[in-house]
């Protein structure tokens, strides 16, 4: 039935001295871009350089939630396309990404929040994405474990319900994309660190690694949380990014109890049940920049407090694993996808914060087009780095900004 167990992403290959494109970062976006460069643009002489192992960063640390009910009309089409790509990729990659289309409930705890959510819902519907406002009683029908009484800190008034969303097995996406890219001839070099980026006359010419120098006219920065540091240290280009840790944890496995992704911005908590039965739940970010992926006592306690109110039956369940990843946050909570600026041949795809998983397939597809053609696709134009100097922040979050790590 299974035959021989063959290496998924090919045999280990030697680092060539020249590639048509070098991608820094063997994570979701890097691998997706590599895959689409090869699939759509016949650009197969491509190296993905990964310092540790593929999926070490956000790819393996996120809580696997996918959805397309963002706030702005620039974002929704991108995420919509990403959402539609999961079944397509499962087929193309011949790798089961285990899309569990369970739907997402984003809980609201005030009249103002319900009204704000209506804007998201209307935006989704305008773009043909299914999303509805539902009241507390309907929430309870969908999630019987939910506490919709008035005696909690933030009583639930309703939710934004987004049936097309759900969860996707995050590791499978990493491995599947690696498999797909390698099948097209892309070289994936793990345990290889980029040590420098060569520039001549305003044009990218090479990438230095601890295994040797690579000549290339194109480089894509897709190193997730490490992107801003690489950009500054290697090219002196500062980015409007703050790198924060974001934490998540799982409980011991249970038989099905939660059939949807449920989240609450007010409680800073979300929860879903993995296919293994664990309740995966995440929290807000530690509000100081760092590169540690350390967890904190504060957040696991906070998370328990939040879930104990929202889903009180979970008080009888145990946390068993708590981890953290890096989120590269921009001031407007939207990513930076840009290229050929300020250096020719220099492309960046970063600043995804904690949205990098759900978007990776579509972002990779369009970044590949950008890199292959040199023309920025319309889909990516709003995400230019220049928007910050031009006073054109995106409205992905409505909340007001003050000085903070993300400003």
């Amino acid at each position, binding site marked *: 039935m299974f035959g021989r167990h063959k290496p998924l992403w090919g045999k280990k290959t030697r680092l060539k001295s020249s590639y048509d494109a070098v991608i820094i970062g063997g994570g979701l976006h890097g691998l997706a871009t590599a895959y689409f460069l090869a699939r759509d643009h016949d650009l197969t002489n491509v190296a993905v350089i990964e310092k540790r192992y593929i999926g070490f960063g956000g790819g393996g640390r996120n809580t696997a939630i996918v959805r397309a009910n963002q706030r702005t009309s620039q974002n929704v089409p991108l995420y919509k396309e990403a959402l539609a790509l999961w079944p397509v990729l499962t087929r193309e990659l011949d790798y089961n990404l285990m899309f569990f289309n369970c739907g997402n409930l984003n809980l609201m705890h005030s009249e103002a929040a319900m009204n704000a959510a209506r804007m998201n819902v209307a935006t989704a519907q305008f773009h043909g994405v299914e999303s509805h406002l539902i009241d507390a009683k309907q929430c309870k029908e969908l999630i019987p474990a939910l506490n919709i009484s008035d005696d909690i800190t933030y009583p639930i008034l309703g939710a934004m319900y987004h049936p097309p969303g759900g969860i996707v097995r995050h590791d499978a996406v990493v491995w599947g994309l690696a498999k797909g890219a390698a099948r097209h001839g892309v070289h994936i070099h793990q345990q290889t660190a980029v040590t420098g980026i060569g520039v001549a006359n305003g044009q990218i010419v090479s990438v230095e690694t601890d295994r040797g120098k690579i000549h290339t006219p194109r480089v894509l920065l897709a190193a997730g949380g490490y992107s801003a540091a690489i950009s500054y240290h290697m090219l002196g280009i500062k980015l409007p990014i703050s790198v924060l840790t974001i934490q998540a944890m799982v409980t011991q496995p249970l038989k099905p109890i939660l059939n949807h992704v449920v989240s609450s911005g007010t409680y800073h908590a979300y929860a879903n049940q993995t296919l293994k039965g664990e309740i995966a739940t995440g929290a807000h970010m530690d509000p100081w*920049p760092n590169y540690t992926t*350390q967890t904190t*006592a504060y957040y696991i306690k906070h998370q328990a407090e939040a879930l104990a109110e929202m889903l009180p039956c979970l008080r009888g369940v145990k946390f068993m694993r708590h981890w953290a990843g890096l989120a590269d946050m921009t001031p407007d909570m939207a990513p930076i996808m840009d290229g050929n600026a300020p250096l020719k041949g220099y492309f960046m795809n970063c600043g995804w914060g904690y949205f990098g998983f759900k978007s990776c397939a579509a972002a990779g597809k369009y970044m590949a087009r950008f890199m292959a053609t040199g023309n920025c696709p319309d889909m990516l134009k709003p995400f230019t780095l220049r928007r910050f100097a031009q006073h054109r922040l995106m409205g992905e979050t409505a909340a007001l900004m003050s000085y903070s790590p993300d400003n």
Partner: protein
Amino acid sequence: MALTLTCPICGQRNGYEFRYGGEEKGPRPDEEGLSPEDWCDYVHLNKCVAGIQKEWWFHRDGCGAWFTTQRDTTVNLEVEQPEAQL
């Protein structure tokens, strides 16, 4: 928690008592003649140092002091005593 900070007034405390106030970027630039790029550099751009950086903190839940400290962002530890401000 993964961070403790030494407040110049209150001593070592849990990092969650504080608000982070950004990388040290120096005094506010002059308003007149500031180009959008220079403005953006001061307001939005960061070095995101993986290593020791000088940064601002406010002891929100304590004495209300703003101060700078040197912190190693790769281990989340202070490397020197903070510099007191008001």
